[in-house]
């Protein structure tokens, strides 16, 4: 058997060692890149661009606050919900925003105090109108509701002042007293059913899974160093290819 020159044997030995050592790291990296790549290839069919991330750790990593249900008032079998500063009728977004202080249903209308305004909705959650509360009301959360059982008119009480909603539903008329009006106990905020809550949070988040997977695939998920780590992986892969080719040579 012809003895190989020692310098040539050394190169093959080195190539084998490098190839083996790199193999372990490259295998892990390849699995990572392959999986994220496959997910991205089928992002649309998997609806990754539509699915909202709700996991608190991932949101925290992206410095995104998950939307919060601040108020949820049940009116008959419907819900008036404040999610952050957006208002929803069940799952349907309303063209209203602000802080929801109280709401109640009377006959076919919903009366809701949102910020410094009174908003009216139909019992199907359609927005009728919004007008300002009287200027004297500085704490809308302290407003009490009243209804006249004979006329069906709605009034409000704040401290020792009274106002009636006018017949056009466009504003308030100051009253000297609330005689003839009965106090109404407006429903308080209660927990939203889990399914409705999940649906609301899902359709109103700002971070989609597709974005997270793209960031994982290109390394940006790990910050500014992430792309450099992937560059390093690519170089190591190249070294493995070279060492592998060397092993093929006799």
């Amino acid at each position, binding site marked *: 058997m012809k003895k190989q020159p020692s310098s040539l044997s050394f190169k093959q030995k080195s190539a084998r060692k490098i190839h083996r050592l790199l193999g372990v790291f490259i295998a892990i990296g390849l699995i990572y890149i392959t999986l994220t790549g496959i997910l991205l290839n089928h992002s649309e069919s998997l609806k990754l661009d539509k699915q909202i991330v709700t996991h608190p750790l991932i949101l925290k990593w992206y410095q995104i606050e998950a939307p919060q249900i601040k108020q949820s008032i049940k009116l008959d079998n419907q819900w008036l919900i404040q999610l952050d500063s957006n208002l929803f009728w069940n799952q349907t977004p309303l063209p209203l925003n602000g802080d929801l202080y109280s709401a109640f249903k009377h006959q076919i209308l919903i009366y809701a105090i949102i910020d410094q305004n009174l908003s009216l909705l139909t019992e199907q959650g359609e927005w*009728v109108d919004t007008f300002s509360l009287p200027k004297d009301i500085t704490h809308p959360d302290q407003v009490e509701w009243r209804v006249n059982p004979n006329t069906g008119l709605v009034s409000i009480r704040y401290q020792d002042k009274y106002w009636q909603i006018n017949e056009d539903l466009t*504003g308030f008329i100051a009253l000297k007293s609330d005689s003839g009006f009965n106090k109404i106990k407006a429903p308080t905020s209660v927990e939203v059913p889990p399914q409705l809550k999940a649906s609301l949070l899902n359709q109103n988040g700002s971070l989609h899974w597709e974005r997270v997977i793209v960031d994982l695939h290109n390394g940006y998920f790990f910050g500014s160093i992430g792309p450099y780590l992937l560059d390093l992986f690519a170089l190591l892969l190249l070294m493995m290819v070279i060492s592998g080719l060397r092993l093929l040579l006799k």
Partner: protein
Amino acid sequence: MFRIFKIASILIFLGGMTNAQATLIKEEQAFLKQQFTEVPKAQYLWLTGDLKKQTIAILGHRYPKIRVAYWQRPQTPNQTVWILEEIGKEKPITIGISITDNQIESLRILKFRESRGWEVKLPSFTQQFDNVNYKNQQLSRSIDGISGATLSVRAVTKIAKLALLFHHKVTNK
């Protein structure tokens, strides 16, 4: 619709003068004062039934409110004035329209909130709507667009159609 009429009837029980708080912005008030020597009380058109469907057909979506205010003097029943809103790109544009005899008498942009497309405020654009009417679901005149303001132009054009539809509804009760 009947239930809405029923509650409206209950509310009108006491009659007399109301003391509605002003909720119009100053541009809206100024526009109304230009149209009327004495601004009449606002009336309301409820967007229900077929009118709701026609509104959706024009806008491509529901009008945000289920009722819209309009102003009409009993002495001139053929004139109505509307203040309507439509989203341009992201924010609402407030538009005042005066209609007489089914033709737009004047159209003004009362409040423009976007950062781009402000050219729709210019008289050279809004005057295109003068004497325009609405036939066969189209305006009687083609409106020239403005480069860089496509969405704003589209919003204003839709509102012009909507106001003419509403005017027809109100004056042909």
